[in-house]
């Protein structure tokens, strides 16, 4: 196990604890959630093996589920974006390709690129999460309101954190 892997394990638990101890209690107007733990999967280095991504995503989602009493729900959605992530990264490769070993972060690829990269993935995550939780489309507009407001909240937090903790490799 090399040094960067140990750092990633540390970040794993940091994201998890922040999510379940702090952000779980922080729900704006009862509809806007912040699922910051998604950023952990989004910001892993670009050349990460998709199998590792999915297994790590599953573990993260599963542990969040234990605290939210919603077994399988977060695990299911995180595995989904972990799977989609590398395809999406491949299809939006900037001219000249990615730097070797770099993370998909603002510092390396710019703000605009990061929005294009993360917004659809976070949207898919929130969309699937809330509609599976609601058990269908019976309260469509209310669920949609949750999806959109949470999207804003999560994205703002992810972007702010990257400016606050500036690091070439990753957050």
């Amino acid at each position: 196990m090399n040094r960067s892997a140990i750092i990633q394990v540390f970040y794993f638990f940091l994201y998890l604890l922040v999510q379940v101890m702090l952000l779980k209690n922080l729900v704006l107007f009862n509809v806007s959630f912040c699922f910051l733990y998604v950023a952990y999967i989004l910001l892993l280095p670009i050349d990460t093996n998709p199998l590792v991504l999915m297994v790590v995503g599953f573990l993260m989602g599963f542990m969040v589920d234990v605290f939210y009493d919603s077994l399988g729900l977060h695990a299911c959605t995180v595995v989904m974006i972990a799977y989609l992530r590398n395809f999406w990264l491949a299809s939006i490769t900037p001219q000249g390709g990615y730097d070797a070993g770099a993370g998909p972060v603002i510092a390396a690829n710019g703000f605009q690129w990061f929005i294009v990269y993360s917004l659809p993935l976070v949207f898919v995550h929130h969309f699937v999460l809330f509609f599976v939780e609601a058990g269908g489309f019976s309260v469509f507009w209310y669920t949609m309101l949750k999806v959109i407001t949470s999207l804003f909240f999560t994205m703002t937090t992810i972007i702010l954190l990257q400016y606050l903790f500036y690091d070439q490799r990753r957050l």
Partner: protein
Amino acid sequence: MERLFNFVYEYRAFFTFLALEVFCTWLIIENNQYQGTMYFNSANRVSANILNFSQGVKEYFSLRKINGDLAKENTLLLKKLERLNQSLYSLGTREVKDAAIINRYDFISAKVVNNSTSQFKNFITIDQGLIEAIKPGMAVIGALGAVGKVRAVSAHYAVVISLLNTDEQVSSIIKRTGYFGTIQWDGTDPRLTNLRYIPRHAKPVEGDTVVTSGYNSVFPGGVMIGIIKKINLKEEALFYDIKVELAQDFGNLTYVEVVKSNLKMEKDSLELNVVGPR
């Protein structure tokens, strides 16, 4: 055969994805089944301790409010006791002599260590479990009204399915008229819940009190649920659409009582003998 292995190997990412998603779906479905024996929930030791710590920090900021609520509940209970004493005095006797009937329900006080109101399926974790003989299916009430039903227990903690959970249904009656229906939340506003299956001829009015019926012997009868806020009757509809304002504020729940129904077994087995399993 070799080509099959090659095929699976080539698309290993996709197959892993599929396997994990199928497993997650199975978990979701399994978790939705009512009152299963579960280990991976917020009542297990590690997660409950972490939640306990975070709740402990939060509690310092609401001590004043908790004190006020407890004092209010105390006065309410004293008033009730006094009224009961008065009526017994004027009757000159105790109506019910059977000790089993008098001690029908036991109450166990518990602290809330985890709570949410903003999901579609909300759960509450409390800090009493198997050691205090808490079992799945017991009712949980707060100072101001019904809270929910115990769903799973570990040694020191229990997970309660909140009234603010779209899967939870509670049999209840309109106190004034005695018509009974079912309380079920629709997943939107945490201050309002829905009263269903009140028939057309029942004529409820805004401001009517809704209490538990006691029919399913989980909740004692007459536990406050809320007050009717809005009534709507569509043409051709068989039942009213009734919005009930919850008496208990789920946003700041701190202490609750778990109700142990001592005669539940007797009632259930009698009903099972006569009516058969439902």
